[in-house]
Every structure is written in structure tokens, then in C-alpha cells.
């Protein structure tokens, strides 16, 4: 199949499964905030005939929404997903970099909860190791 013609698209070409899913997501200070579990795409209505002149665009990345559906299929309802809008993404390489601090996204709630309820209460928890 090596003789198939090659299609060239302008800009950075990415395969969502290959380059986006399961990649580490970093905030604007390079702090890890999650992994990509799913991608939301706008402009496809199931079953309807598609418009060849209006290709869909990626609207959001879905972070840490549970490994169970990833392993066994299905997906949680949209309201229970941690969404990061595509407009917040600043670069895609070996990790996906965001242009905002992690606290701007609700996926970090468990980090903040454990910090406030447990770690910060232990003496020395707010100090840099020496």
C-alpha cells in the first residue's frame, strides 16, 4: 500500500489517537495536571449526511475521566467530564502544554482537596525540602 498518494495538509498534522490520547497535560508552569482520556469534536451529527465543506473542529480535551470506560468502552455523561477547551492549548509535543495555571481547570480539584485536607496540615508540608 506504499503506492497510495500522500495527502498534504497545511500546518501541524496530528492523529488524535496517536498524538493526543494518553499524553501528559502540563499547565503554564509545567505542572502536570492530567492525561487526555478523550477528545470532543464539534460538527458531527450522528446519522445525518455530513457537509463536505464544513469539517468538524476539536473543541475540548477530556482529562482524567476514569480508566474504566477507556478499558471497557462507553463513556461517562458530558457533565461528569473534566473538559479543557482547545483554546487553552498552547503547544503539542511530547506533552500537551496549556496557557493557563492548573487551578483554572476543575480536573485539579482532588489535588487541591488532598492538599488542603491532608498534606498542608502536616508540619513542613508547605516548605521546600532542604
Amino acid at each position: 500500500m506504499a503506492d497510495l498518494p500522500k495527502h498534504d495538509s497545511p500546518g501541524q498534522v496530528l492523529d488524535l489517537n496517536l498524538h493526543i490520547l494518553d499524553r501528559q497535560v502540563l499547565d503554564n508552569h509545567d505542572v502536570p495536571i492530567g492525561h487526555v482520556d478523550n477528545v470532543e469534536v464539534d460538527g458531527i451529527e450522528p446519522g445525518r449526511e455530513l457537509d463536505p465543506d464544513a469539517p468538524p473542529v476539536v473543541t475540548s480535551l477530556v482529562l482524567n475521566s476514569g480508566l474504566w470506560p477507556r478499558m471497557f468502552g462507553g463513556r461517562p455523561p458530558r457533565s461528569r467530564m473534566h473538559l479543557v477547551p482547545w483554546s487553552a492549548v498552547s503547544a503539542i509535543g511530547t506533552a500537551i502544554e496549556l496557557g493557563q495555571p492548573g487551578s483554572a481547570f476543575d480536573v485539579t480539584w482532588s489535588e487541591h482537596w488532598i492538599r488542603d485536607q491532608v498534606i498542608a496540615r502536616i508540619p513542613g508540608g508547605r516548605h521546600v525540602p532542604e
Partner: protein
Amino acid sequence: MFLSDVLRRPVVGPDGPLGFVADCRVAVDGTPGQLLANAQLVGLVVAPRNRQGFLGYERTSVSSPAPLAQWYERRQRGSFLVLWEDIESIDDVVRVRPGYTRWSSAL
């Protein structure tokens, strides 16, 4: 719609089954947004068999270490790219328009 609703769905052409959706190809280009331009769908990568995971050997130019790369290339032989304009509808199955073109799935 989510990526997980499309991945691994069967793909049907005018003359019968073509394979399964292995990936969605997008291109980041066009009007620059706040940080990164929109990611527009280019098309779907169709593979003859429904298999997961090629350790990243799929469609890239990485070809070493040779025994591993050859093993995985053999397992995914026959995959191709269908452009968005050739896709008729997406539901439980993906339908491809008559007269569609098979493009190379290589990146």
C-alpha cells in the same frame, strides 16, 4: 461528539466493508486563536483490522529497532486515509461516499 464515539467503528464503502476507524487526523492551521489555531478534521484513518496499540509505530517514520518495527508494520498493513469530503455519515457505522479516494495513512 467524542473521539471515543468514532474510534474502532466499522467503516462501510459503496461496495461493502472497508475496515475500522483507527484514528482521526486533524490539522492545526488557519485563523490563529488565542494560543493555538483551530484543529480541523482532515479525515479518518481506516485500518483493515480492529486492533489496538502499535506502540507508536503506526504511520510514523520510526523504523528501529528493526525487528519490532517490522512486526508492527506487518500487523497494520493495508490502512489508508479517507478525507472528510469523502465521508457521508457517521453513526454506529461510518459510511464513505461512492468514488472516494484512498490516501496514504503515513504522516
